[in-house]
């Protein structure tokens, strides 16, 4: 099978930075600040009232606009389906015209960044796993369209005003991430080795306790199956780039897979919290920035999300 590459990882965060103490005091968390700090969280980011998820998407894409130019497709992912429509709720209510429910951010992105040749694909039912889902879809598209060269992947979410910024015991940040999947590697690219997803619709509306309860057995299965797809063993992994969730989660998983916790990268957890589907990009960018990744390194990226969905991707540093 032809190799595909991923590069140009960028992200953007909401403008308002808040400490968990402040957010807890303001009623923006279900849990106490102490509980959140015990789980590793310190700060998170929220959008100003006038900032949309699409604004975050643009901020993430802008630095890689040159690389995205000429993209054959855009896969635009949102965790919250409501972030997949920029139409005015008020206009929909007054006009009763459903076109106001179909003002798609992916179409705007295509126009705003002059990605004229790109087809638009929205992905909005994979929750926090949707960035990894977009990588998989991009890979499948390039596999089925021999003339295509690259696909722009974007994920962008912000919580509605007055939302509680905590889900399944994680402190949430508004944020967006972007990257490019292509046939030709550019500087700093990673080869896409394997992607895998598990969905359990039977737990589609799982409670927080059910989400936590099922986490380890499903994540264990996800990782084992992903490694199998890649014909790798856990010992072959040089890095595990995780979701920004309670830092005990990967203490347990690393122990189960006998992975040195030094290889587990969730360095942005204290400063950014759980940036919805952008966590992997934040942590990967930080890892690359640290200069510790060398050519040939194999990285496992994992995410769990509502639905319930679990997704993983294995990359190899070029």
């Amino acid at each position, binding site marked *: 099978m032809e190799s595909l590459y991923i590069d140009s990882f960028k992200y953007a965060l909401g403008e308002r930075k808040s400490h968990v103490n402040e957010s807890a005091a303001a009623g923006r968390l279900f849990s106490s600040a102490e509980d959140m700090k015990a*789980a590793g969280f310190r700060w998170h980011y929220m959008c100003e009232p006038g900032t949309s998820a699409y604004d975050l998407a643009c901020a993430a894409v802008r630095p890689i606009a040159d690389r995205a130019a000429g993209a054959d497709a855009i896969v635009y992912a949102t965790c919250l389906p409501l972030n997949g429509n920029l139409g005015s709720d008020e206009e929909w209510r007054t006009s009763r015209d459903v076109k106001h429910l179909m003002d798609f951010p992916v179409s705007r992105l295509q126009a705003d960044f002059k990605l004229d040749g790109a087809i638009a694909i929205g992905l909005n039912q994979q929750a926090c796993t949707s960035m990894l889902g977009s990588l998989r879809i991009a890979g499948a598209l390039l596999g089925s369209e021999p003339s295509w060269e690259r696909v722009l992947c974007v994920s962008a979410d912000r919580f509605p005003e007055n939302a509680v910024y905590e889900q399944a015991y994680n402190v949430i940040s508004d944020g967006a991430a972007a990257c490019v999947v292509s046939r030709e590697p550019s500087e700093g690219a990673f080869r896409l080795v394997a992607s895998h997803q598990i969905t359990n619709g039977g737990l589609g509306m799982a409670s927080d*306790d059910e989400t936590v309860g099922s986490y*380890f*057995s499903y994540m264990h299965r996800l990782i084992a199956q992903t490694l199998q797809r890649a014909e790798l063993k856990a010992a072959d992994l040089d890095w595990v780039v995780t979701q920004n969730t309670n830092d005990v989660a990967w203490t347990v998983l690393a*122990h189960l897979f006998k992975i040195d916790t030094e290889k587990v990268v969730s360095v942005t957890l204290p400063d950014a919290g759980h940036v919805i589907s952008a966590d992997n990009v934040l942590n990967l960018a930080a890892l690359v920035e640290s200069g510790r990744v060398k050519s040939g390194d194999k990285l496992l990226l994992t995410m769990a999300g509502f639905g319930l969905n679990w997704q993983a991707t294995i990359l190899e540093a070029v």
Partner: protein
Amino acid sequence: MTVLVTGAKGYVGGLTVKALREHGGYGDVLAYGRAEADLTVPGALDTVPTAGITHIVHAAAVTKFAVDRATAQAVNIDGTAQVVELAKRCPDLERVVLLSTLYTAGLATGDIAEEPAGAVEEPRTDADDPPGVVRFANYYEWSKHTAERLVLDSGLPATIARVPTIIADDDTGHVSQYNAVHNTLKLLYYGLLSLMPGLPDVPVSLGTGDFTVNATMALLAAEPGIYHVCPDLDQTPRLGRIVDLMFTAFEQDTSFLRRQILRPLLVDEAAFANLINGLRTLPHGPVLDALESVSPFSAQLFRPKVFGNARLHKAWPGYRAPDPDTLVSQTAEYLVRTRWGRLS
């Protein structure tokens, strides 16, 4: 003949009173619950008329794995001391039977004989112990071990009945007393627990109320001494087998099937400790409560034991243990069908 039973309002004590009254042939039965004698109160048994009491079955105990030291001391040790003093005042006493636990063997592994264990040592896991010292996983085990010592050292005609973990009333799997085991199964059924401590091949001695009480009845007439009231090794299921049987039973339930709950991963002590520590950082909820109730026992699931029961066989010609697979399956089916007793 008169039999005095402590803990008569409790599960095994209550069943013992019922069995004595229905089949025992032991004459009067004095049923003492907490209302009649609160064993945490000094002198609680001082006014018991001792004349004519031929047998005492001491069933009163706190049996929670997570019991704290003070409660274990007050109920299981000091309470037993009061029973021993009462027994010494009974001029017609023929036997005092202490209902104990198999896990007075503590964290020992391998063959466990029907004989006194070593010196008492409080629960701790990081000790470099001298030979003969018994370490324990929790204060329940420690207190029952200490209670055994009190009874054995008293000079009384004493029988120690070390009973297994009771998961059902009888072979049908009906459950009327719920404990940490049932709570753990509930977590598994509802998908709230995906890691379990233990080794798949560890034998887990399980019993029923019927089995335990029938054995106790037989031991009332047997020679004094220590008895392991447990099924034979080949009738003792392994932890991995128990989990498989439970999930096979759960999977007969359509709502469970729809939720696609995976079988839990059996993990080592360090991973389980990490899980508990992690959950402690989450807002307090039923998952942590249930795990905290069973975690003090978890160390036993890494320490295989084979409980000898030759003395039990000799003392109880009618020995009959439940079929382990059937018991586990029937119990799981009952729990699911009644949603842990809510629908029964």
